[in-house]
């Protein structure tokens, strides 16, 4: 394991913590949405990280990586495929969040989450 490996893991965890911190402390719902995407990015990074194998190359079969040796030469390709899905879904969720946030703030006349608690107890 090398420095790079732990740097990525650390960055990812940092992003998640920053994101969650933002979600819990921001009052503006758009900022909360932004905080979610930060945390999401961290999670995605972590997902890619989980397929990392030291000293290997990208899982793209070209001249450098003959198909026959691919298994021992490239990093785990599966998380990379998964993270694509995750990113796409993340974009969809973020878009929906923004739509809801904008419409909600228009309808309620405020973007302050502290004033969106008519439903409680």
């Amino acid at each position, binding site marked *: 394991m090398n420095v790079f490996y732990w740097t990525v893991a650390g960055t990812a965890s940092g992003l998640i913590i920053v994101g969650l911190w933002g979600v819990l402390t921001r009052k503006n719902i758009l900022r909360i949405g932004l905080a979610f995407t930060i945390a999401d990015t961290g999670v995605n990074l972590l997902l890619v990280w989980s397929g990392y194998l030291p000293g290997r190359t990208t899982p793209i079969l070209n001249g450098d990586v003959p198909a026959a040796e691919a298994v021992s030469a490239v990093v785990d390709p599966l998380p990379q495929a998964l993270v694509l899905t995750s990113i796409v879904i993340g974009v969809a969720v973020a878009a929906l969040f923004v739509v809801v946030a904008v419409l909600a703030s228009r309808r309620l006349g405020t973007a302050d989450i502290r004033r969106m*608690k008519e439903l*409680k107890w």
Partner: protein
Amino acid sequence: MVTALAVFLPLLGAFLTAWLTHRNERLSLLITRLFLLAGLAAILVIAARLGAVTDGGLENTMILRTGVMTPPLSIDLKVTGWSALAAVVVYVGALLGVGRFSGRIPGTQPLLLTLVTTSLGLMFATDFFNSFVFIEIGSIITIGLTAAGRCRRRWEVALKTAMISGLVTILYLLAVVIVYRTTGELRLTAISTMTGFPAILVSGLLLTVIMTEIKAFPLSGWGLDFYQGVDKNFAAVYSSTWSLAVLLWSARMLTVLPLPDPGVLARIGAGGLVLGQLAGLRQRDPGRMMGYSTSAYASILLILAGTVHGADYLSLTLLFFTFASLSKTTVFLMADPEEEDDPWKKVSGYVLLLPLLCITGIPPFPVFWAKIRMLTVLADISPLLMGAVILGLFFESVYIYRLWSSRTGPWQKKRKYFDAAFMGAALLAAGTVWTAAGAEQGLSLSGELFRAGFVRDLFLAIFAGGTLLSLPGAFRGGPGEKSPAVWMLVSGVALTLLPLSGNGLTFYVLWEISAFAAVIGVSKGARPSEGTFWFAVFAGAAGYLLLASLVLSDGAVSSPGIPMLLVAAAALLKMGQGGAHLWNVRAYSTAPSTMAAFLSGTSSKAAVFLLVFSASAAAILPLGTSLAWIGALTALGMAAMASLESDYKKVLAYASVSQLGYVIMGIGLTSVLGWTAAIYHTFNHFLFKSILFLGAAGVIARTGTSDYDSLGGLVKRMPLTFTFTLISVIAFAGVPPLSGFGSKWLLYNALVEQGMLPLALVAMFASVVAFLYAFRLLYAVFLGQLAPRHYEVKEAPLAVLAPQGVFTAVLMALSFRPTLLLDRLVPAVASIAGLGGEIPVIEGTALSTSLGYWDAWSVGMMVMGVFGFAFVFYWISGRRPIHVGQLDIGFAGELPPSPEEVHYAGDFFRPFRRALAFLPEIHASKVFGGIVKTADLAGDVFRSLFTGDARTYLLHSLIILTVMILWMKGGTP
């Protein structure tokens, strides 16, 4: 192929309707329905192929390959008999809801269809990443459809749901990363082999995700807000599709979590159930109540996952959640989403009854069978856990009752509005029949749960006779009341079958049916809410005590030890003993009078029956002496209360509880004499209390009031009612020669025989006090001055008069020839094992004990002789009576004030009240009010967790996550 169709047909439909939806709305709706129907047909075929409803069929499996490769390169779906049946409910729920939701809000069909496919996908998913995709799509659609709804608060709900799903995504993906990193696999089942800290981390993350998604307390805050603010017709669809899918997915996940100790789940669930439902007690918003109920089911899932395994787990989760979902869908379909504050405002209680009963799992509705099996399993593991669960379920039934009882709307006539809801109700009814027929321990009316014999037949006669004789008067309610006849009949039939129960389960089912039918009957009164509420709460509490006893004694109604104590407590509650009279007084006084007659005269005997047979089966009655004291003090206290009360029906209610105190006293003695006296008095009480309440029903029907101050002087207007009332008053006051004396005399004998002189003194003193209210009752209603507005009052209606005549005839026969009853009763009681003391001897018409003898026939003849002699003497003495009009009174030259003022019935026993003023006043209403207030306060503490700020809910999830990880870390070295 069929499997693929079953899953993806709705998705196909979604593409089609997406194109159609703004071009031709009706066609689009039709196509939506067609695709759903086709999908339903396909899933039914699959369920049949898997043999899902056969023995062990829930575990049969079918794999659906959606690509050419194997997972994780393609999506592999696994359909089991279990999930196929749940998928049927998903389709049914969507079909029921689509008209009300998409029909009202155009353009929602494609999303709704996609939601169905997504729900099925999640239920059938086999690996982590597919599950993730389905969870995300499901959340997106949920947020979208929430925002599409037509209610004011939808934005707040959508935003909160979006925030929650944002957090769930992060936590879930973290778990996926750890799973993949550790095991190199993504199959859902792969995690079960994990160990060490990664296992703890994954368990914590997934458990938090699951608890948030299924809305288990304390992570239920967003769910409560969701159900409160969402468009109720979307909630209808949501409950049976996405909500059910998430529950079943969680049910699978919970079994494979690498927890150090799965029992933790049960404890989290039970704790959440008690505290979460406690928080729900104070709830007034009906939508939110449904949210609390959802959270109860979520807790039940956790409990099941921690305690039940294998095939049992599958069948129980299926029973619980499919029927709960369907019931919720039906309830939400009845709502009017445009009504923000109370969507069920326009609905009558009748239409909501069935789905709400299904939700609470009252027998014999489907969830009940699952409940009783769950409790049986829990009882073996830990009775404490079982007690907690029962308490939580009791809390749930209280607020669900409140939701039901505040329905005042008219019967909804708009078919268009309601046909889907009725369809749902019909399905629930069919499910009820199906589950009851297939229940493992079936219902049976043939068996020897209660030893056949005279005692059992006597109770049978009481239940059948009492129902038949109370019924005629019930067809027409009194002033301002509705007719309780149907519910009285249901309750009465269940009561009549009670002694014939073949097993404990049947007994409990009949007991509960009888109780809730009676609650509905009581609710027909003129001012029902408060009395009905207390009746429902006490009947519910008694029911749950009985359920606990049933579960602990393995199918019998009771067994020695704790179960017997529980049964005794249930019986005392039901009879209003030891302070529980609160419900009797409030319910009897607000119920329709004939219903009160039925409850007091007939229905209360079910508790005596229960106590007598449980005690004789258990061969011993623990704390018999305490029981006797409770009975004695109740008899005395209630007699005093009856004397000071000024409401006709309340007096009778107090009197009823007081008289049942003698019964409890007799049973508590556990001697032949005591039990003979108790059962004898039970029968007497049945007769005279029925007469008194039916008499009151007649008086109230004619005069429209039950207030002593407004009554009086009715003797000439209602002579027959007066005669019957007089006879029963003499009977219950325990004056010879009528039969009340016989049972009390026997009771005193039993008390003296057992050496319980202080108790005998209390009993006798209570009898004296009974005199006070007996006399006052006669005076206030029938004697004294007649109010001018009652000049035209006629005799009571025949429907209540004729039954009184029958009761009186039996009472008179029994008074003069008690041996008709005792000839059979004494040997029957003497043959019950475990009863000590002497056996009274019957010779001819006389009954003798070692302390003396009582010959009712001779005494009766003597009394008749004395009266007859006086009458004849008076008649032949030649003095002709002068007829004086009832209002012809002189006031020593003064002009008499109005008759009402002369009729001093109001504060009749003021001197006694003053004389006893030094005693501390203990009011049952204050005690119970205090209990309710404490529960409410405690509930408020937990309720205040749900601040309405979505960030708080996220924080809850994170705190729970941290706590769980630390807890599990502490548990494993």
